[in-house]
């Protein structure tokens, strides 16, 4: 290999690398792009903005649920974000352990059992989040909004971004979050007889119920080995 590897050359000069893209990931002073975006969002949304955060270089803005529909218009008009990346949902509830007994936890790799929230926080279990981007300014924002658990309803973005159609249909069938103003919330992936919302954390993964997760073992025990010996060899986490 060594005869073929050349010296590390100096980076070729690329004149058109935009300054916008040089996002400091965890700099103490805020990213100027984020400052600019936040100023525009604050001017347009006012007190509908609950919290904003920097998720490793990406701007995350959490807005009030009733402002979710307005966010799309503001993103398109005030932020110049003409491009819709996606709309999706998230369930912050930790997956409940399946079965009974201490060895019956099939929801592994084992996640924490307490409810914690991601960047910009959440008021409850369900959230919708979407990413819009600007093809001219080369920036993007992640918007989040809390969704009530007992009555999961938010406004639809289809009127502003027609591409939200399929994303919202997917979110509806996977999480049961309804989008008001969507022209036809029909199933996208699942058969029409399907019951339940598969991406909710309390929806079990059947494969894991049938055959529990063995844990992170390096060596599987041979038939005839004592189970205790296998656990001692590498059955620990």
């Amino acid at each position: 290999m060594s005869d073929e590897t050349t010296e590390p050359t100096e980076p070729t000069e690329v004149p058109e690398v935009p300054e916008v893209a040089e996002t400091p990931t965890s700099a103490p002073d805020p990213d100027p792009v984020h400052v600019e975006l936040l100023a525009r969002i604050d001017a347009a949304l006012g007190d509908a903005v609950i919290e904003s955060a920097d998720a490793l270089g990406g701007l995350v803005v959490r807005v009030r649920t009733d402002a979710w529909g307005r966010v799309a218009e503001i993103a398109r008009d005030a932020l110049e974000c003409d491009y819709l990346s996606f709309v999706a949902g998230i369930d912050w509830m930790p997956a409940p352990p399946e079965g009974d007994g201490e060895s019956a936890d099939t929801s592994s790799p084992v996640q924490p059992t307490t409810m914690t929230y991601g960047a910009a926080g959440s008021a409850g279990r369900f959230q919708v989040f979407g990413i819009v981007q600007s093809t001219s300014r080369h920036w993007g924002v992640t918007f989040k909004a809390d969704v009530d658990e007992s009555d999961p309803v938010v406004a639809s973005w289809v009127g502003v971004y027609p591409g939200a159609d399929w994303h919202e249909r997917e979110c509806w069938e996977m999480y049961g979050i309804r989008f008001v103003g969507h022209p036809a919330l029909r199933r996208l992936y699942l058969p029409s007889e399907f019951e339940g919302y598969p991406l909710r954390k309390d929806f079990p993964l059947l494969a894991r119920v049938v055959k529990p997760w063995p844990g992170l073992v390096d060596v599987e025990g041979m038939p005839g080995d004592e189970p205790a010996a296998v656990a001692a060899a590498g059955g620990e986490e």
Partner: protein
Amino acid sequence: MSTTESPTNAPGFEVDRNAIRQLADAQINVELDTGDMIINLGPQHPATHGTLRLVARLDGERVLAADPVIGYMHRGYEKLSEFRTYPQVTTLINRIDWLSSFANEVPFVDAAERLMGVEAPPRAVWIRTILTELSRIATFVLFLGEMGLQVGALTPAFYGFRDREHVLNLIEAATGGRFHPNFNRIGGLKDDLPWGWIAETRSAMKTILDACDVFEDLVAGNEIFLSRTRGIGVIPGDIGTSYGVSGSNLRASGVDWDLRRDGRPYLAYPDLDFQVWTHPDGDSFSRYWVRLQETRESVRMVLQLLDGLPAGPVMAKVPRIIKVPEGEVWVETENPLGQMGYYVVSKGATGPFRVKIRSASFSNVSILPWLLKGVYVPDIVTILASLYFILGDIDR
């Protein structure tokens, strides 16, 4: 459990229950008018790379409404990812867009590395960039040949498969897998390049450039091809962006946006000198033309990368059992089919808490109901082929 149950469950529908159920399955959101005809394309069709079903309502030869029915290949990767460790997830996401599996792995591994604060060594980053561009070339060369097939030219398809093989052989030699390399590790790569690979790659790149010339002559210069694709399936730039159409499809509509140049810096792209190709027309032909130019550009990039390949290790120091600290990150890359991104939420465990997979083809195809309105039946196939999607990338 579903909040909007279909009316088929109501009593009195017993006689027509099956017919109604089938219509519901077809998910046609159209009224049944007399005189119109509903045709069903697929699920099996050579232009679709998988099982896409298209239900179209026709008035004579003209499409009044079209509705893609997806989900035949839905494998639930977002759910499965929540039950697997980070290294296991890369195996899954290899199968999303199976023509450019290596490029799929990159954003996910990048996301995990960003969350962990691990940086892959420079040599690993450059090899990743080379293999990403090689998978782009492999994907596009197949397209360049196959697009001819969709308008009735059989020969270019064989050339496409033949010339793609040069690149697949390279990927196989380096990674061990033709289609599913699973070569990325969090913190670097599984292995260094094999001996003699760089010289092989140089000569293969020459072959690909020649192949591009052949395709330009044989397909892009063909009068029949031009008349079947020029002005057909026009996507205006602003419509494309609002649907989330990305990649070459969007650049063919005149939107000058490429994450390799304009996005958050990733891989070795900031160090490369390359051009972003656009075409103002937005029709099927311009999508073909942009991919043709991008194949040549990728070859140029691979040659640059080979020249500047740094020496050193290909794996950073990472713990044996990978635990990713709490946090969330959005990483997207410019994949052959368009923008692919992962929104990874970690809660400090060995596996991700939530992975939202934003795949390019999903959004690229979601424009079809808009795009197919008013086109003629024979053009459906050329439009589908020119959008170039992989069903695994739609259904995930």
